[in-house]
């Protein structure tokens, strides 16, 4: 992370620039990415309510946890991936 708070993370393998304090969803929208989840029938979904209610922006973080991208703050080196709801856990 540099002095401006700029940091890097990955979304589905793509390098994304974020800033300290930014939510994952905000950083992705700033990079032009709006689809972050595949629904139960494989439809693209993304940031909708923006306040933690709708769970549409759920992403996978560092291979294990799922979290709402609108509430989770970006961290340097974070690996963020699309969640596929149709996939069996």
């Amino acid at each position: 992370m540099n002095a401006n708070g700029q940091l890097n993370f990955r979304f589905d393998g793509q390098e994304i620039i974020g800033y300290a304090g930014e939510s994952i969803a905000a950083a992705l929208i700033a990079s032009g990415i709006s689809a972050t989840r595949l629904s139960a029938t494989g439809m693209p979904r993304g940031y909708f309510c923006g306040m933690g209610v709708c769970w549409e922006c759920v992403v996978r973080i560092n291979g294990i946890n799922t979290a709402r991208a609108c509430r989770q703050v970006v961290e340097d080196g974070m690996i963020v991936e699309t969640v596929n709801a149709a996939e069996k856990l």
Partner: protein
Amino acid sequence: MTIEEVDVTIIGAGAAGLSAAGEAARMGARVVLVDDNQHPGGQYFRQPSPQNYKCKSLVSEKDRHRFVQLLKGIDTPLVKYCPGTTVWDIHDQFTIGLADGERSRRIRSAAIVISAGARDHVYPFPGWTLPGVITAGGSQNLIKGMGIAPAAPVVVAGNGPLLLVAAANLVSVGVEVAAVVEASNRPWNIVRHAGKLIHGGSNLGLAIKYLKILYKSKIPFLRGYGVIAAYGSECLSAVDVAPIIRNGKFERSQARRITAKTMVTGMGLTPSLELPRLLGLKETSMPLRGGPNIITNEKMMSSVFGVFVAGDGSSIGGVELSLVEGRIAGINAAIHAGIGASESMQLSLTRDLSAHRRLCKFRSGLERVFMNNVDWYDLLTPETIICRCEDVTWGKLHKCKEKGLITPLQLKAATRIGMGRCQGRNCLGTLAALTSHEGDDPTKEQEMPRTRPPARPILLSELLHEQLPPPELPDDPHLPRQQD
């Protein structure tokens, strides 16, 4: 180990919760203030968080000052503020279950203030699940909280004052807004209800400010129109708008297409009722105020003794009303906990009650300005998603109806509607409306799926690390009872 005991537990640290906590503490009450968010302020007073924040101009000096005052109110050893903490259970009206990401614990108090806020009310329409279709609240949080603009061009469409605020803010930060589409079309109500609107105080100045911004921007403002469908493959690319005719239906023959990468939408707000419903607080239907509202008395006490509900979490009224209701609830909750009110507190309560009356008048005027008779369900097609978590379509529900499955509970069992991660927050309102909409057994109130703990998804590890044996289960009339 014992359960932590305090005088007043306050749930939600938005406008209502912060002012409730401040007043209860000013009375001398020991307060626990629980908030699901990481930072205080709720939606309205959401503070910018990124280091490179660019939208400073959106927060007025007055609000900055008010927020500082609210924070001062809770900056006392009497208030224990718990951010990032989810209330997942209210076991009886005095014991609540909290989870903070690490573990679950319980707090018991003499009084509870629920100030859980509201969320955007969005009626389903074809294409509403496309990435790029976001709520007015979501747009506000993105620009006000994150300093990030949604992808342009933006179409702002729906109904209600928040929509105009969202549109004006987008314009203020330089986002290209292609059109503002407002369903209501009764501008004369501004004049007809001027006597009520005049009580708005500072709200009036704000309204004029936002309208000026929109007027100056020369953005097409379509009154009496609505978005009938959103299109796109991976994300939004266009929307169709059509005029709304007298009977509240959409005139599809006059539809026209507008290119948009983002649609900001909302048809007003609706209170978050999960916690009130766990307690079985009495509700009333207020169609102009987001649907189901919690019934409160002049003390902001609900139908359950000792449980107070304030702000948009009880009935939609906006920030000014939330601040006042929070103060009224905070003082009365402390009194309920056995703390005497000094003369000055009594005086400030009287002042708040008269402010409350004034703001309620303003609210009822504003509601009439944005009133409409739109039949939003006219937009549904068989492919329209109703339940976003489980991808249950209107067509699927309709097929169930043909098989004789008509009640919300039957439809839930057959389709999993309302059983996903959002726990029905996106769809249960629609399900309730659609099952009564169809005229099924109009004599009987539909039995809706019950709200059960956890009120929000929590981790199993949080429960495993709970250090107390859970309190004894109360008699639940819905569970089979063992015979003696």
